[in-house]
């Protein structure tokens, strides 16, 4: 599903050039659950941003479903993203001004799903995430675990093929964290590919494979049994 080859990304300031990704090559197959680990500044988030088409690489190739997307312009990237990729963030990134229902509904609005169908789909996914009773609440009125469940609901409402999760349990206590990991595992079992950046060995164990990065390069790959 995803194949990156010799991917490069630099960050330049006036005096210093930092290499975030150093000719990195990774392949992720459809239906896989991959965890990416490594110390701070190793390039995990940069990789996730590029995989999620939020950022573009400075060199190398990125094939998404066998299509070269490294040189896509913003409009094409946005189009590909909204139909194929869901995001879950450490800080949830829910919009404070919108209710639970409206937050989850948002991706459907942007993909042009008609209103009546949106209601059905949002309700279905809220039900599945067991957050239906909070549909009219605003994010600030929810606990961290509930907020992350809303974020997961929002990520999956469009039935994306790929979910990118950036430390999804980083802001949660262990019991809420486990709940979110169970959710992701369920989604993966239903066929969604998941790539998750994490610092937690515990969370990484939910995945099939762990890729460890250091200085923008792969240093180790563990297959989980």
């Amino acid at each position, binding site marked *: 599903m995803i194949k990156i080859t010799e991917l490069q990304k630099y960050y330049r300031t006036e005096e210093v050039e930092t290499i975030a990704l150093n000719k990195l090559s990774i392949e992720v197959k459809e239906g896989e659950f991959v965890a990416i680990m490594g110390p701070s500044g190793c390039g995990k988030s940069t990789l996730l941003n590029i995989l999620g088409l*939020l950022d573009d690489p400075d060199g190398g190739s990125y094939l998404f479903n066998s299509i070269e997307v490294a040189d896509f312009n913003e409009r094409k990237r946005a189009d590909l993203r*909204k139909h194929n990729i869901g995001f879950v963030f450490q800080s949830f990134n829910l919009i*404070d001004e919108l209710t639970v229902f409206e937050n989850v509904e948002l*991706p459907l609005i942007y993909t042009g799903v008609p209103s009546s169908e949106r209601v059905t789909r949002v309700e279905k996914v809220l039900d599945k995430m067991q957050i239906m009773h909070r549909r009219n609440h605003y994010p600030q009125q929810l606990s961290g675990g509930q907020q992350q469940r809303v974020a997961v609901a929002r990520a999956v409402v469009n039935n994306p093929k790929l979910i990118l999760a950036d430390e999804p349990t980083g802001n949660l206590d262990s019991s809420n964290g486990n709940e979110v990991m169970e959710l992701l595992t369920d989604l993966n079992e239903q066929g969604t590919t998941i790539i998750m950046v994490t610092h937690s060995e515990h969370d990484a164990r939910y995945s099939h494979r762990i890729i460890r990065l250091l200085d923008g390069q792969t240093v180790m790959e563990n297959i989980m049994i």
Partner: protein
Amino acid sequence: MIKNYFKIAFRNISRNLGFTFLNIFGLTLGVAACLAIFLIVRNELGYDSQNSKSDRTYRVTLHALDYNANISMGIIPTMRTYFPQLEHATSVFYQPEVNIKIGENRFAEKNLVIGDSELDKVFDYQWLAGDHSTALSDPNSVVLTETLARKYFPQNNAMGQVINFGDKNAKVTGIIKDLPANTSMPLNLILSFSTYQKQFSDMARFFWNISGGAYAYIVLPKSYSVHTIEQQIPGYIKKTWGKDVDASVQLPLQPLRDIHFDQRYINNIVTPTSKDTYYALIGVALLIIITACINFINLATARAIKRAKEVGVRKVLGASRPQLISQFMGEITVMVVISVLLGVGICALFLSQANSWMSIDIAPGQILQPEVLSWIVAITVVVILCAGLYPAFVQSAFQPVDSFKNNSGVSSGGLTLRKGLVVMQFTISQVLIVGTLIVASQMDYFRNQDLGFNKDAVISVRIPTKEKREVFQQQLSNMPGVKEFSVSSGSPSYNNQWAPFSAPALGFPKDNVTEIKYIDEKYTDMFQLTMLAGQKITRKAPTDSVHKVVVNETLMHELGVQDPQKFINQRINVSGNLVTVIGVVKDFQSESKHKKRRACVLEYTPDRFFTASIKLQPKNMPATIATINKSWSTLFPDDLFKYEFIDEHIAAMYKQEQKVYTAFQLFSGTAILIGCLGLYGLIAFAASQRTKEVGIRKVLGAPLHSIVGLFTREFITLIAIAFLIAAPLSYFIMHKWLQNFAYHITIGPAIFFIAIAASLIIAALTTAHQAVKAALANPVKSLRSE
């Protein structure tokens, strides 16, 4: 999608009430002020436009010794014959005041017009009763406006009732709708021309180089060129008025719609005004809207940092840039529409109050006229685009990757822009402060300075009959509240009589025009006129056959004499009489300061002493006036005691300027207030952004003043930059404005000091609350919240 945008817009508005209030309140004031200015300017520039033939109606004027609005009664009847192609032509006699008696009730009314049936054809009045083609045909017929008809005959139908005009009784033959205030020929009553046929026919026999008594109007046929008539006028003058009229004399045709803005003429019914003044008001309106838009842009871009995360999330979820631009524009649209609706409401309320204290006449209902409504829609769209586009583009450009980080990439560009815009707002407010101060100084100069005579505590009363004048004078001299009094043709500031003068002996055989005042022996002292040479006017013995006059400096200069002493005993011609100059008086202000001072002759002629000028003791003036009224009522039972303080009369000369000044004060104040709202919002935002910095500084021991200084230092720099732009700009604009007046103040440095000081005080007051609040906040709390 649209529904979603509006839902979010409303929710954002209600979530950020403070911010929304600053924006909406500022823009509401801005829209209200702009709409009021639009209506005022439309009203003023629309003088005489209510008349359906206004684009082909001309006033026939006289350019002989001066530009004169008042011409001979003989012009129109002869023009009708010479120019048969004229669609309509009419002469009217205008009287500013008239005393009326109905039964036992007496009234003093303004604006009496004596005219014929053609008058209605030129000005197409709206008739409520009577036949417009015959109402003014018969002698002793009068047409009233609706208001007067109701005032005089509240119970009965006014038609057919009789009104007494002193020497004449007239029957009401018609009622017309009240005229709008923006007419150059206001009237409350029309008396039929034929009532005074005999007198007018006598007057019509002469051409009159000065003030022949009539205001004359002609209407050209449709698509007829005025130049055709203009080319034939010299031929008409020659043929009709023969060789007596000098070849240089002209009869300029003045377009009706230009009358209100043409300041060259003497004897105008309504004092004309400069169009520049209204363009300046339009300028103020633009500045107000710019200030309100700047608030929007500043507050929106400042808040953009806060909204960066939202933009990032939306983009991650698939929002395209156009969708985000639409969303932000939707929010702006909601706020602008709310502001416009509120602004229109406030403007309507304002107009219902302002008509009296700003001397304008604009019905709030005008707001619903299609032209005004389309203007409102246009301003709404312009504000949405000006205030919304930039922030929408900036905010929608945020990249999700940046916006999820620490926002550092998001703010810096906007900061420079915001500083630039704040400088612009300070520049605007300083220009307005300087402008308002200069207008205020000029207004004070008009009314109080350099008049050349003492106007304090003097009332002026017109004496109805000369028979009882002596008795009235006798009674005045016995009243303890009366300090001094004098009788004359009018006080120094009333100028209503003109005469030709020449001095063949001094090499000036050709007539020039002078003002002439008939004064008694007390006049010079009472008004404290300054004699430069010779004697004052004294009482003339009936046997004394020598005409003695005092002239002013200007007249002397016009005849090429510089030394007043040398002008004594010179003989000059005034109105065809040879007179001897016995004194020269320093120039005094008899007209408004728009115009250069004119030549003036003072002469002792008791027959023309129609006016008593009474100087009151400063103590208890109302009681003195009541005493004068009492003796007046006994002496002149048929006439109302109508007096006017001379300083009020002088103030009335500057009614237009006063109106503009009031408008400037009000609207400049509004612009400055709107700017303050924006500044307050901006500093509140800056304070919230810098909470952590303030916390760290306090932990490290920064005192209160250094933290307050952190916020205010920047604004002081911005004010200084603004001043460097505003000072020369406002000097240039106001210097140009002052050139409208023959006599004006000079712009000194003090005004600029006041402007920058005012800016600093305004900015300090605006920022102080937020700055001190930030400085007093508990650092533990602010650091934890980060």
